[in-house]
């Protein structure tokens, strides 16, 4: 266990250094703010344009739904990318994977450690985006003191699921060429579409809603939104299709699916690693 902890700590430190040592701290902070805020502004402008030409009275419920979902989606994009890109960057960019891989540590734990720095930066970006929304865009947030433990538990579970999904992708990327950017865009896109991040599941066709309900992130976004937004599910004009479940039930769904995804991540990682070793692909480079 102490080896695992030492690996995790060292990998987290390495990840932080690699993320932040390319520039001055103030520029790093600025960089960490601009990207998520600009991402939020794309949605703000989409809303502004629609209101300007289609619905002059506005739709605050829809806007809050979208804004909070988008803020927490920063975790998804960042943590997923931070996890699966470890293998590809070590293999293709730094070409150090062979040295790390043969060292007497758990490479699985090493990947988790490398991703930890991304989580730290994401917490900061999510907070900035939410505060910006509250201060300048009229987003109404309200977290009751009694809901704080539930919020923390659901956030930890949500992040664990993200790490598990990232490891699954890492296992697959053992076998593929350098598709970091396709994966970085595509997999979050999958969750963007099916998990009710920016629009409720009711917008999707039945089969799309079924896919969404099979992904734990759907429940994470739903419970987070319930705890943070002041509009209650019964008064909101947005039909999430999950109003029939109370918060503890949603949390239960999240717990069960998190455990399932953790098991899946170990399985996919081991299978990917096995076939990569067999095919001699652990340290391949595909630079075209």
């Amino acid at each position: 266990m102490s080896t695992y902890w030492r690996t995790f700590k060292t990998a987290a430190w390495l990840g932080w250094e690699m993320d932040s040592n390319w520039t001055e701290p103030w520029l790093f902070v600025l960089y960490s703010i601009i990207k998520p805020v600009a991402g939020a502004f794309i949605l703000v402008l989409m809303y502004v344009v629609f209101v300007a030409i289609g619905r002059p009275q506005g739709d605050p419920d829809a806007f809050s739904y979208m804004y909070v979902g988008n803020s927490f989606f920063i975790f998804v994009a960042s943590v997923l990318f931070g996890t699966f890109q470890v293998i590809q960057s070590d293999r293709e960019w730094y070409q150090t994977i062979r040295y790390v891989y043969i060292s007497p540590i758990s490479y699985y734990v090493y990947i988790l450690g490398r991703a930890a720095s991304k989580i730290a930066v994401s917490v900061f970006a999510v907070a900035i985006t939410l505060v910006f929304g509250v201060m300048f865009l009229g987003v109404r947030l309200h977290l009751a003191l009694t809901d704080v433990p539930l919020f923390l538990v659901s956030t930890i579970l949500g992040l664990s699921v993200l790490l598990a999904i990232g490891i699954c992708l890492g296992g697959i990327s053992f076998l593929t060429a350098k598709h970091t950017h396709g994966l970085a865009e595509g997999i979050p896109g999958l969750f963007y579409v099916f998990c009710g991040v920016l629009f409720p599941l009711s917008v999707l066709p039945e089969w799309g809603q079924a896919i969404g309900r099979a992904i734990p992130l759907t429940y994470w976004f739903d419970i987070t939104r319930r705890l943070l937004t002041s509009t209650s599910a019964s008064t909101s004009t947005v039909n999430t299709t999950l109003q029939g479940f109370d918060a503890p039930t949603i949390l239960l769904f999240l717990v069960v699916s998190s455990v399932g995804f953790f098991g899946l991540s170990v399985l996919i990682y081991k299978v990917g690693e096995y076939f990569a070793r067999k095919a001699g692909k652990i340290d391949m480079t595909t630079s075209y």
Partner: protein
Amino acid sequence: MSVATDRRTDLRYRVGLNLRAVVGRSYPRIVGANREPSWIFFEAFLPLLGIAAYVFIYQFFGFQATAAILGNPPMCGNHVCASVAEQNQYLAAVNANTNALIASVVLGGTMVAFWLNVLWSMASQLYWEKEIGNLQLYMMAPMNRMALLGGMAVGGMVMTSMRAVSTLVAGIFVFGVIFQVANPLLLLAVFFATLVALYGLGMMFASLYLLWGREAWNLSALMEEPIFFSSGFYFPLGGLFRIPGWGPAVAIAGSFIPASIGLDALRQLTLGSTAFGGSLWIFNVTTELEILVGMAVLFLILARYCLAYLETLAKREGKLTSRHQ
């Protein structure tokens, strides 16, 4: 003058050499990438999901607006609908605007493919080549370095076209977007002028990124969402002018990226200049084409100068090929 020297200064030989360099550098992108079958899934299919999300947002807004119009009481704008005819008129307007906005997203998604290719496979490429040790070979090779960048650009355009085409096809067949192309020749002219200007910018960035070293990767990452926002990839750029104060300033700054003007012109040519009530366009198409041609020429010239500066620096400091800096 020796025969070899005489041959190297011969114009026909130099043109042939540089054309071969263009073909040679574009070859691995066009052929090499397609040898990896998983590429199609990762680079063409998966990114479609991100575009789909933006399409569904507009559909969500459309559903919400429709529900308000059909609600009790039925709302037409800020007032209760006076008659069924007015209600129908508002419903038709919401449907038309939603379709036009979805079409805007599809066109923006097509351009996103090219912009990401410019950032990650043009601008960052020389830095990447340095890291993996190819740059010194390029610097020693006898062809013009612009031919090398040209080859990268041609290969990148062809490679990215698949993703762009799949986005368009998905837009038409999956999301039911209707494009009305009245002037296909002008559309092609705008499209290719936009691409040349974009890749010219990428060629310029390629040299600059090499000078900026490790910040290059982060700069590329930083030029995704902020550029998608300021250049109106997912909404008509004119929407920014609706925001008093900072909106027009951001729109003008974003217009320095050729994709913004190009997208505005492409949207006008495929949706009709009367879409959105004609209130969200920047200039007319002809003016935008002229601006794009000007940008293309300017960026190619600047790329040549940046590359020349880089070569001078390489010779003077002798550390251009030092890795991890």
